[in-house]
């Protein structure tokens, strides 16, 4: 069963096109991240699902029912805002119980559910306090409790962790995941933090200029990016553009192998290779013949970060980046000649 279905949704503000023909299913019970730079339309999409923004075209279904024309307040959603948006004039319990009251649940039943929700976010007994008396992380949990206590059909999170400091953010990521798993709510999470998206999500959707360019499991999207943008936005990538010749791609004099299907000879293609997938060795060292691709290069610079090394290299006109483990404690010197090698399956063909 589908949690949320978005079909053919488009939205413009004046002449600016914010979303273009979005069609996507968010499966029931899954945690999906909408990931993209600012201006990519991810927040607009979330607000269309919530009902704060009406799409120009297309429809939105939540739990099987078409809600396109239904206002926010009749949609049964739960939402956590970037700044939490706790009602400052109400106690924590009144905040959490607010949505229950709107659903006709009051009195003892409401109190029990509020306490249960507060326990779930590990703030039992905080009901009588006021939001002002809570820390940022605690306010975050109250906002979450307020959104889940009403058992919404979908839980919408609008960059809820961005206002927290790094340590607290990591802690809350764990909490969020636990609570989502326990409650089993269909969750849509907007973020511009790729690490957060990868850590939390069942599915990641990458948005670029108003389109979803790729959606899938985090590993799938990371390992097999479909576009240059996806490869670049989620992690780092080297892009090698060349011409197809006999099932390989000719780049800087080398013929690069890939396992992806290639267009016919003569076509131009771009391959993405993740920097950590490339092995580096001095040109005069013995080769490891196991890897299909190899490319001679020169070290342009080295960035030393303790556990790892980042090499910036040049091979002909090409600039490349390689991440290497700092395993022997002596990085290769700048200007030294090296050979780069990687497996054919790590050359991923991407769209421009």
């Amino acid at each position, binding site marked *: 069963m589908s949690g949320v279905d978005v079909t053919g949704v488009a939205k413009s503000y004046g002449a600016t096109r914010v979303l273009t023909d979005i069609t996507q299913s968010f499966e029931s019970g899954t945690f999906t991240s909408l990931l993209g730079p600012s201006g990519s339309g991810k927040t607009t999409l979330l607000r269309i699902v919530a009902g704060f923004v009406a799409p120009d075209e297309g429809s939105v279904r939540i739990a099987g029912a078409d809600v396109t024309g239904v206002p926010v*307040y009749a949609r049964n959603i739960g939402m956590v805002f970037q700044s939490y948006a706790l009602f400052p004039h109400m106690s924590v319990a009144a905040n959490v119980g607010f949505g229950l009251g709107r659903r006709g649940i009051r009195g003892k039943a409401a109190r029990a559910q509020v306490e249960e929700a507060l326990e779930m976010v590990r703030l039992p007994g905080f009901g009588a306090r006021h939001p002002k008396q809570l820390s940022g992380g605690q306010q975050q949990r109250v906002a979450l409790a307020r959104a889940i206590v009403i058992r919404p059909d979908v839980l919408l999170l609008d960059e809820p962790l961005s206002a927290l400091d790094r340590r607290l953010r990591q802690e809350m990521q764990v909490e969020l995941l636990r609570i989502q798993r326990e409650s089993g709510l269909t969750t849509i999470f907007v973020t511009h933090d790729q690490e957060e998206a990868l850590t939390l999500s069942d599915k990641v959707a990458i948005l670029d200029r108003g389109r979803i360019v790729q959606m899938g499991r985090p590993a799938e999207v990371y390992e097999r990016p479909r576009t240059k943008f996806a490869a670049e936005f989620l992690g780092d990538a080297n892009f090698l553009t060349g011409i197809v010749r006999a099932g390989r791609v000719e780049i800087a004099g080398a013929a690069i192998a890939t396992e992806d299907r290639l267009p016919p000879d003569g076509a131009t293609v771009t391959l993405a290779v993740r920097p950590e997938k490339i092995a580096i060795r001095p040109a005069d060292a013995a080769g490891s013949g196991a890897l299909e691709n190899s490319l001679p290069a020169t070290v342009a610079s080295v960035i030393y970060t303790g556990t790892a090394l980042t090499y910036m290299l040049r091979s002909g006109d090409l600039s490349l980046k390689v991440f290497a483990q700092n395993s022997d404690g002596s990085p290769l010197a700048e200007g030294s000649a090296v050979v780069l090698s990687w497996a054919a399956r790590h050359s991923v063909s991407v769209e421009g």
Partner: protein
Amino acid sequence: MTSLARIFLGLVLVFLYLPIVVMAAMGFNASPLYALPFDFSTHWYEELAGNGRLIEAGWNSIWLAVLTAVIATALGTLAALALWRRTFRGRAILRILLLPPIAIPWLITGTAMLVFFFWTGIGRGLHAMLIGHVALAIPYVVLVVGTGLQTLRADLEEAAMSLGSTPIHAFFRVTLPLLMPSIVGAALFAFAVSLDQFVISYFLSVPGMTTLPVEIYSAIRKGFTPEINAISTILLVASMIVILGFARFARPGGIGERS
């Protein structure tokens, strides 16, 4: 730091009340020319008690101010919501249109109203004064409530709606309580604008139906007696008692808190 702040507040209050104390004291000074040295007398209060015209003008002023405050605050708050919570074409112009009633000297506005009300048949009288006072107070209310709205986060209303509140429910449960300090402040201003308004009242009042400021304004010509100090003092003390009493017994958080 806190005690320094309190001392500063105290000094501000001394500054604000210095002429008020002088005003009250002069109501008890025998000299009709406010001359010193001070010579205690309740003469002016006795005179006032027999001055039905001044007392009636005082009552007129109070009723006019109360009605002005109620109407202007209600209308102005609605307009502020539109001007600071909604986007629409012409918003900037509508905001600018609030300024002429404040910027154009009241004398001109009053003259303009007199002529215009004469042309349109609205005429003069308490009803005309009410129309004028409300119109003058609305810009103040809109600007004060607008300030409150600007500093009040919009996502609170969205949060309420995401939890099932209709816009109207969200307004009454979330926006209105949080906006209360601004609304109460705006109402106090609207009240003051009306209570202190002499120019427009002066043009729009009819013989025998005036307000206190009109009486005072007319009196500048000929005898601004300490009776005026007496009635001003009574008015101030009465409003102090009423409003501080109200603050005492109203539910907490009316104007002082936003949490």
